[in-house]
């Protein structure tokens, strides 16, 4: 405990300013909570749009990309989801606080709660921006990363008493098949002579 250095008369404007400062302190927790509630709604909507679109479209993209790009993007998506969840939790905590039991009223507890809520709100905003940044990098990477080449169609064909196995070429003369065998010989077979056809994963 200390005694003031000095004292004197105060003006009406001093009193009005003091009353305003006390009112501000009384209202600050409610103001921060209200602001956090609005931010929470906005952040949740933004994150839902971005994560929803990414979740539904990135799956096929990841499958089509060459390694390690697909793996990097998958990890990036998961990291962005984790950051987005952390941002949402921080925003929820800022707007609603955490349940707490007190045996006695703590002096200045509302002010401490307001400071904590403000910190949580700032954290939620930064985490949301970080999640969006990660999503942006992931999306850009998925656009420009090299894709896996389409696998050739291999088939085993019985025609003209011969068994042929090889890669089929679509750019062939109508009514014929062009087959490149594993021995790199090119065979042209009329469709009318084909007795059996079976797609295979590899040729002997």
């Amino acid at each position, binding site marked *: 405990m*200390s*005694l*003031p250095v*000095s*004292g*004197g008369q*105060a003006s009406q404007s*001093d009193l009005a300013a003091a009353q305003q400062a006390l009112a501000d302190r009384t209202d600050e927790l409610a103001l921060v909570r209200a602001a956090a509630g609005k931010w929470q709604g906005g952040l949740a909507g933004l994150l839902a749009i971005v994560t929803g679109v990414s979740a539904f479209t990135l799956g096929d993209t990841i499958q089509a990309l060459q390694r390690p790009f697909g793996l990097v993007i998958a990890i990036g998506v998961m990291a962005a989801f984790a950051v987005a969840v952390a941002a949402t939790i921080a925003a929820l905590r800022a707007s609603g606080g955490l349940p707490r039991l007190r045996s006695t009223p703590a002096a*200045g507890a509302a002010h401490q709660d307001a400071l904590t809520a403000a910190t949580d709100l700032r954290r939620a905003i930064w985490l949301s921006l970080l999640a969006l940044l990660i999503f942006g990098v992931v999306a850009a990477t998925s656009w420009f990363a090299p894709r896996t080449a389409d696998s050739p169609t291999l088939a085993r064909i019985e025609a003209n008493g011969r068994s042929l196995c090889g890669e089929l070429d679509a750019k062939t003369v109508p009514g014929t098949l062009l087959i490149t065998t594993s021995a790199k010989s090119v065979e042209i077979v009329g469709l009318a002579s084909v007795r059996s056809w079976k797609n295979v994963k590899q040729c002997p």
Partner: protein
Amino acid sequence: VSTTPTPNPWVVASSDEYGARAAVTIPYRPEPPAHPADLVFEGPCPRCDHGFVYRWPLEVVRGVSTITVTVSCQCKYAHPGRPETVDGCGAFWNVVVRAP
């Protein structure tokens, strides 16, 4: 005939005398001590002598050694004419305190 003295009526007023008396009779403490958010003044009102507690919200101001605080009586005594929404006898004053 009642011998109880008539309490001071509620009057919003300030004077150098209130401030000077408060400076020697009303101590203050920072709360919480480690990271103060408030200055708490506790003592007798220089006008009505009723005990009261006044909590002043601190603001972070760098580079100052003293702070001027406007304190108003917050006693719970029912001073005649006092509005229901406020406490105290109406007296207020300034004190200069060392920055925590």
